[in-house]
């Protein structure tokens, strides 16, 4: 029985609403939910699914929020949702509260609804999911799994998912287990038919096929990083399990097994090493790169903390290394399954002493793929660690991006490595000799030449010929050369992406990483209020001159970031010697991905304090 409240009926919404699923984790809901999102993608409608999950394996509440937006605004929208699919009694109170007035609360009405939960302004639509599964399936595990598939079938009727799209996904998913295809399709039909029987009309929330997804794919950032490492020529992945980065190593292994196993010998042209801790993981990466093999590790904030000492060694001894940090909420263990951009400073200045590290900021999975592949070239060319900062939202959620591409004419850039023939031409090899005046010396790999090129790599001070010395002037010369290398670095790094809407605009937004979608949408929302705003998205640190130019060209600069302490602003202020007052922070750090609404509200509130003449 469904409650007979008389909630207002909302206006029809086509391809622009949010559906949220409230599940119990470990119940198999993830594959059903991802089928839901993928079906919408295959209908050609832009879609952004996001997992909101606990640090727990089984039994705790977990959510899956799907934003559907024909115009392609795919940041988290924020606010209440139009349709809540409630399959978890534990979280029902908060789930009911999250439905917008006139919205729909879909639930399993095998059991009666707690009357205290009933709101007059929303619709309760129940279907006896448990009863249907128990009637149709004997095995308790199948009952649980198919309950999820059944609600997807019901939603197909209620909001107009094309049944063919769902069928195609079932066919693809179980291509290797064809016996499972028909039972899944039957379960979808059970849900569809039951919904049709109970509800004479579908909901006003409707999906209509579109063709907005031409040339687009749905991809997770972590898998994209793993794939990028395969394409970038990484042969060694040393890692230690930590949420939310684990699937980077898993992605690398998956694709390496696909492309890097010799078809004849079955030997592996790659090595994945699960290390004993993060210290060992980065140590292995440094050892491999020192020895001329491209190697990387993936971790999260706590791992970066542990890797600090080794990062200083790699900076000072000039050993290339690639580290992918999938950021989560800190400090300490923080919120392991919630997103943040809060490892900026610990990465940029990783280690004791005077250290500065190259940092990359991909904003979507396509950039995760590209920048991971690039990171190996950059690390080899600059002979230094490259830290790529992604985050949980980017890494563990599927995002709609352009298809990946690769230029087959591209050659790996190994930087200044001398082979035996080249060493023969060298009078006296000096590992830390700045021959070219760009701060980047030449290096050699162990075992190259019987008489030339050997040197002792160390974290202690040495002269240009790698000979140990504690002479102050030799130490200073080396540190100054490292600084010169730092000045050289930007030319090897991806430039910022500048979107100039209006050359005369006085307002500029600086952002990086996963704030991109929210910023784009917020700027469009502000444009409707006649605010003309340009934006610049940083892809790399050290900063390019374009960042300074952008700041100079605008009267009001907003820096959007997902942490409490405005770490990115600190980096701008410190490195570009900016007046801190020039930079207004838009901060978001509750662990949820940033939404357009948050960016819009912050900027609008600030602009309302300024006279219109200032911002015109």
């Amino acid at each position, binding site marked *: 029985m469904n409650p007979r409240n008389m909630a207002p009926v909302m206006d029809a919404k086509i391809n622009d609403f949010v559906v949220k699923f409230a599940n119990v984790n470990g119940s198999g809901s993830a594959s059903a939910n991802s089928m839901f999102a993928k079906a919408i993608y295959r209908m050609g409608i832009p879609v952004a699914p996001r997992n909101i999950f606990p640090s727990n394996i089984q039994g705790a509440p977990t959510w899956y929020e799907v934003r559907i937006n024909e115009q392609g605004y795919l940041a988290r929208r924020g606010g209440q949702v139009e349709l809540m699919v409630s399959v978890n009694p534990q979280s029902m109170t908060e789930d009911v509260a999250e439905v917008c007035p006139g919205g729909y609360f879909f639930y399993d009405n095998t059991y009666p609804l707690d009357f205290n939960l009933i709101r007059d302004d929303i619709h309760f639509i129940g279907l006896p999911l448990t009863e249907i599964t128990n009637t149709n399936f004997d095995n308790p595990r199948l009952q649980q799994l198919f309950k999820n598939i059944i609600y997807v079938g019901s939603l197909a009727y209620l909001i107009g998912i094309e049944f063919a799209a769902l069928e195609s996904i079932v066919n693809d998913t179980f291509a290797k287990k064809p016996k499972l295809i028909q039972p899944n399709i039957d379960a979808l039909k059970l849900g569809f038919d039951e919904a049709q029987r109970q509800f004479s009309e579908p909901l006003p929330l409707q999906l209509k096929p579109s063709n907005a997804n031409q040339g687009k794919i*749905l*991809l997770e950032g972590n898998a994209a990083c793993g*794939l990028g490492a*395969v*394409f*970038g*020529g990484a*042969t*060694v992945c*040393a890692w230690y399990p930590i949420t939310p980065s684990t699937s980077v190593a898993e992605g690398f292994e998956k*694709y390496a097994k*696909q*492309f890097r196993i*010799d078809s004849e010998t079955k*030997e*592996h*042209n790659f*090595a994945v*090493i699960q*290390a*004993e801790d993060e*210290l*060992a*993981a*980065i*140590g*292995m990466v*440094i*050892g*491999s*790169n*020192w*020895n*001329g*093999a491209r*190697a990387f590790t993936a971790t999260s904030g706590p791992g970066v903390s542990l890797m600090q*000492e*080794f990062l200083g*060694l790699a900076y000072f001894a000039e050993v290339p290394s690639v580290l992918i940090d999938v950021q989560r909420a800190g400090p300490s263990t923080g919120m392991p399954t919630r997103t943040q951009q809060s490892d900026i400073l610990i990465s940029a200045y990783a280690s004791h002493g005077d250290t500065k590290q190259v940092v990359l900021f991909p904003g979507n999975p396509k950039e995760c793929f590209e920048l991971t592949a690039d990171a190996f070239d950059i690390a080899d060319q600059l002979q230094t660690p490259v830290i790529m900062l992604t985050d949980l939202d980017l890494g563990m959620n599927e995002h709609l991006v352009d298809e*990946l*591409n*690769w*230029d*087959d004419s591209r050659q*790996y850039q190994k930087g200044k490595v001398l082979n035996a023939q080249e060493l023969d031409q060298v009078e006296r090899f000096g590992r830390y000799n700045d021959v070219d005046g760009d701060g980047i010396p030449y290096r*050699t*790999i*162990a*075992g*190259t*030449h*019987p008489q030339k090129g*050997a*040197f*002792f*790599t*160390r*974290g*202690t001070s040495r002269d240009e010929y790698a000979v*140990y010395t504690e002479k102050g002037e030799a130490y200073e010369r080396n540190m100054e050369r490292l600084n010169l290398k730092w000045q050289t670095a930007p030319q090897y790094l991806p430039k910022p992406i500048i979107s100039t809407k209006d050359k005369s605009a006085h307002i500029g937004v600086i952002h990086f990483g996963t704030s991109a979608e929210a910023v784009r949408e917020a700027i469009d929302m502000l444009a409707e209020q006649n605010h003309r705003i340009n934006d610049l998205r940083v892809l790399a640190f050290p900063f390019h001159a374009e960042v300074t130019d952008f700041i100079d060209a605008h009267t009001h600069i907003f820096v959007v970031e997902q942490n409490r302490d405005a770490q990115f602003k600190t980096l701008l202020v410190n490195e570009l010697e900016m007046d801190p007052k020039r930079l207004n922070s838009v901060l978001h750090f509750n662990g949820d991905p940033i939404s357009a609404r948050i960016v819009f509200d912050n900027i609008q509130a600030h602009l309302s304090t300024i006279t219109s003449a200032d911002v015109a």
Partner: protein
Amino acid sequence: MSFLKPSFRHPKSPTNRLGLTTRAYEGTISTLCAGCGHDSISAAIIQAVWGLGIPPHRVAKMSGIGCSSKSPNYFLSQAHGFNSVHGRMPSVTTGANVANRDLLYLGVSGDGDTASIGMGQFAHVIRRNLNMLYLVENNGCYGLTKGQDSATSDEGSTNKKGRVNPYTAIDLVSLALDLGATFVARSFSGDKEQLVPLMQAAMTHKGFALIDVVSPCVTFNNHAGSTKSYDYTREHVEAAGVVDFVPTSQEITLDQIEGSTKVVDLHNGDKVQLSKLANDYDPHDRRAAFDAVQDHKQRDRLLTGLIYVDPTAENFHDILNLPSTPLNALAQEQLCPGESALKSINNALK
């Protein structure tokens, strides 16, 4: 400490199979204290690598931090060296070794570097059976920071200031046996006769080889009351047998050796020959090895020599199923799947 290295060499110095004299295997002059056990070990390393006829540049010298870890500077100048961070030599060596399986990896560590800060990495590199020689230059103290007790300092041993160590010692040999090490040996820096063939056997072993070498610290731990002094070690050493390394090319003449003899087959025909074995000691029996170590410990004796070896165990390269071509030598064509592969990936993501 000397500050000049003599350059004179006897014109008829013997050469190895590469035609090189030991001079080609030397390093820069040592900056360790005069009489330091570590310098004897460096000399033994030079002898061992020279004797095996390994080109110096095909060795990678790996170390952590401490007096021991400085020593790779004092041998094999033509080899690359990596003086990494404290206690982390095993992980750096693991990475380097996986990148290029064709070099000889010589890890030099100390008791502080291994038994305290590096204990975790020591344990895990053993578990992986990484193909390397892991030398511990064990002096029971932290020399470079002026003589604090280390974790291998025996309970009851007194330090230079007369303080008695109240803590139990970590015995790296017992620990390595327990963790599944496939080559476990102990020696004394003062016994070059034993040390050189042990090193050669360890360098030939295709897997993880530990040699725990008692190497007295002349400055901070060589006094009466110390159980890691020259005198104490000489008085308490008991060899499991005489060790000879027999390269493939040499024939073994058993009749030349008195007492019980065992020949251990190593990789590609090389052998270690153990003679004068106490009580028919069998280095293939891990449990017996463990018992022998414990038995000697209880009798206040230090068992040295080749204590355990398993030449057949899979090493890390086998476990990872790596190709015979080193990973660092694979061409881009073997590494990059290319645009056509990416098309199929794109299609799978639709």
